[in-house]
């Protein structure tokens, strides 16, 4: 166990050495910190209305002003980050776990199963995400779980395909043949020998996917398909700000800036992670 810890430490050190990686690490760190401790950070209750002080600009009382119902924008931004991560993390990790499992089965299993799973992936991919989201929302109603489900379902094929391709390349490699000739079972080959070869690539893919998912959640909320109104979300903030842009620009800033920052932060982190984890580059160090 201690070995994998030191490896994780090595990866973090490697990312921190890269200036962009360090920036990504800091941004993601701040976002995650704010999301975890949102309850203690927010100066006001993010859903408490105060009609008397509506649509204010930034002041010492309200750092980013207030919205049309007098809610504190800064508090809503912080709480919105929590919602964004609550959607992004389970969706991405769920999609990765399911995609990885199905992809490895497709890559290692018999040809007919491979064809069946690929058909399944292609079917999912052929739906435009927003259309799919509309259909699902119409069916089970807008909520945090719906967004997680939609995002997860639409990203499974991406992970599945990558995992399948990796498995296909590995299954004919000599060390897998060597494993088979040593009497290893299919479960052992997939779990002990293939998984460590594939997981790095997928982890990087996941890190790069998180900003997409955050943007997707914001987009769905912007369209009114995401989380329900009183719940703060960056997309919902942006939507309110969009209709009230003539009265105050601060809502758009409050909704847009965190989306941009989160996207940049996770992308930097993901790219830097890819460089550090890539086994070809790692061997040279």
């Amino acid at each position, binding site marked *: 166990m201690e070995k994998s810890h030191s490896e994780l430490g090595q990866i973090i050190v490697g990312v921190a050495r890269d200036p962009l990686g360090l920036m990504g690490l800091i941004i993601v760190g701040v976002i995650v910190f704010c999301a975890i401790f949102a309850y203690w950070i927010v100066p006001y209750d993010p859903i408490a209305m105060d009609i008397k002080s509506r649509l204010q600009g930034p002041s010492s009382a309200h750092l980013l002003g207030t919205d049309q119902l007098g809610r504190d924008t800064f508090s809503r931004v912080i709480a919105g980050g929590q919602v964004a991560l609550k959607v992004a993390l389970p969706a991405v990790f769920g999609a990765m776990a399911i995609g990885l499992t199905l992809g490895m089965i497709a890559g290692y299993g018999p040809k007919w199963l491979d064809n069946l799973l690929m058909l399944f992936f292609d079917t999912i991919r052929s739906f435009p995400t927003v259309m799919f989201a509309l259909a699902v929302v119409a069916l089970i109603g807008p909520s945090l779980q719906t967004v997680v489900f939609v995002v997860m379902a639409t990203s499974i094929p991406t992970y599945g395909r990558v995992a399948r391709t990796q498995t296909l390349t590995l299954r004919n490699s000599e060390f897998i043949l060597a494993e088979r*000739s040593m009497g*290893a079972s299919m479960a052992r080959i997939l779990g002990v020998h293939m998984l460590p070869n594939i997981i790095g690539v997928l982890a990087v893919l996941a890190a790069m996917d998180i900003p997409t998912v955050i943007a997707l959640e914001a987009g769905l909320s912007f369209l009114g398909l995401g989380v329900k109104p009183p719940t703060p979300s960056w997309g919902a903030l942006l939507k309110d700000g969009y209709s009230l842009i003539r009265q105050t620009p601060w809502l758009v800033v409050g909704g847009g800036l965190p989306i941009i920052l989160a996207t940049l932060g996770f992308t930097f982190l993901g790219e830097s992670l890819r460089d550090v984890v890539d086994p070809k580059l790692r061997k040279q160090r």
Partner: protein
Amino acid sequence: MTDTLLEIDHLSVDYETGRGDLKALRDITFDVNKGEIVGIVGESGCGKSTLISSILRLTAPNTRFREGEIRFKGQDLLQASERHMRDLRGADISIVFQDPMQTHNPVLTIGQQMLDIQHRSKQSKADKLAHAAKMLGAVGIPDPEARLKQYPHEFSGGMRQRIAIAMALMSEPDLLIADEPTTALDATLEVQIIERLQELQREFHCAILFISHHLGVIAELCDRVVVMYAGAVVESGEVREIFHNSKHPYTRRLIECDPGHIKERARVLPTIPGEVPDLANLPGGCIFRDRCDQAMARCATEVPPLDQLKEGHHAACWLNHEEVTT
């Protein structure tokens, strides 16, 4: 008569391809006795690899076992269940592959991999690691405990092949298959590996089926040799007999072409003219006929049988037909 460990009995294997059935192995018959080193020699594409993957039953999906049996300790492996085959692999039969740069998982340490292949053992992790270190020591890896924590890319090719041998011998198999284990290594390392194999064979008393196209190595290491050509056994016998009293023109030409046997400087190394016949569309008669300088009329029409010429020496050539004792 010593105990027979592995008997290949009239084995014929086809590959189903778009061009029709490729007759990769035809009527292969030979034995490997307990504790014996048998060499299989032949040029590329003669079916050596098909033979070993058939023994382990790790063949490509388009493989058809047309005829014959592979008996290991008397049991026919071609009829054995997949479960039984898996129990044999890595326990009773193990294999060392050709390219040591490819045979280890690049993302796991040598120690993790050596632990993993002991998955059948009920020993504690510490005992398994100690056993792994002992095996690495036995193949001459210095400081084995520290080396267990390293990844495959931190070892040289020769070391990796020795590690592969250590892993193959870990379960003390009865039969070790070595598939051209020295082809990917340079000449100095080749000698090292061969010497190490000889020592280990004496220590573990396992039989070795040694596949190579390097005649010098075969002569050095093996007790008996099987010469294969285009999917068939053309000659088999004791090493000394094969090298000094070969009875098949192909074997003789092969020995003549070995650079180790050439005494005079020549501009061009000798070769056997002609090409291996198309295995999907075999000509009648002797398969070596087109490239043989002693071919007779009979060679074009009849396939020469693998005759026993004297105790333990077989050859498939019409030239010997007066000498046949049986």
